[in-house]
């Protein structure tokens, strides 16, 4: 009895898509579309822009599907494509200067917890991009430096500062009852 698309592993679906299978690729989009769109939003894209770039990324992934060898996960591969497309689209020629941080300090909600998307908003633009590219898209520091046209040391410090801020935001906050709320 043939397997349904839902039963197939990503690598099997990608192999079928590489042979021209649009339905199989559609299943991959269903599985991972939200993750790619979410990453782009976390990088700072508006919802509609994130969707446009995510669509372009999936189209490009379909065209290059034969290049996906299953070394990493399919979603990580598409996320990298999407991140690069987003950076290209924004035409980030200018070097990132020390940015902007400390805008809009964010308070935890009434239950004392803050989610990642909210926490990212407290980072400066460069920190947010560097942290998202590093931890969301899986790019290495040298790859980020190359993509953003920044010195490697600057990227490392943006990532470190960004993580420090995220840590401060995401750490369990004591509630009025004295119990720590956990990160969602």
């Amino acid at each position: 009895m043939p397997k349904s698309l839902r039963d197939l592993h990503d690598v099997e679906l990608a192999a079928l898509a590489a042979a021209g299978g649009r339905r199989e690729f559609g299943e991959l989009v269903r599985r991972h579309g939200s993750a790619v769109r979410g990453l782009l939003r976390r990088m700072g894209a508006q919802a509609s822009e994130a969707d446009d770039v995510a669509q372009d990324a999936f189209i490009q992934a379909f065209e290059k599907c034969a290049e996906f060898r299953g070394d990493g996960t399919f979603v990580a591969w598409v996320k990298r494509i999407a991140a690069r497309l987003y950076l290209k689209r924004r035409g980030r020629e200018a070097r990132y200067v020390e940015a902007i941080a400390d805008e809009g300090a964010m308070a935890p909600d009434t239950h004392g917890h803050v989610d990642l998307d909210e926490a990212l908003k407290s980072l400066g633009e460069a920190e947010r991009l560097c942290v998202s590219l590093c931890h969301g898209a899986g790019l290495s520091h040298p790859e980020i430096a190359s993509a953003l046209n920044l010195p490697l040391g600057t990227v490392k410090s943006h990532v470190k500062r960004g993580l420090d801020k995220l840590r401060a935001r995401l750490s369990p906050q004591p509630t009025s009852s004295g119990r720590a709320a956990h990160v969602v």
Partner: protein
Amino acid sequence: MSSDDFDPMVERAFSRSPHLADAEDFAKAVETRLKRRGRLRTWALTLAGLVGGWMAVTQSLGGMMPDRAPQTPAVGSAAMRDLQLAAFDAQGSLQAMLDQVGLVDAGATGMSMFWMACAALVATAALGAVKLFQEI
């Protein structure tokens, strides 16, 4: 909490994808775009193949006809005459080159080879344009 055990926590947070209510719509939009691109590519390749094939066949058949001496057309614009003269010049050069390397035979004159090369170039250019369009 040390920074060493914090990073995996951040990665876990990043790995949790948000639930987006329009996920199905998004997938359908991507599938629609893929279908449209596939159809466009098929049309472009078919057209390129037909044009290239038509040119190759007509010029091959033309090459089997008795050679005609180059004639300057009695009527037509100066630009057309220049084009024909340039084509005959190219034919002469190609013929000489083919003679030199011994690649010419009775069925394929320099002119037919010239036009077949043109057809191949047109087909290649069409393929390149399709590829470029896909990348854009």
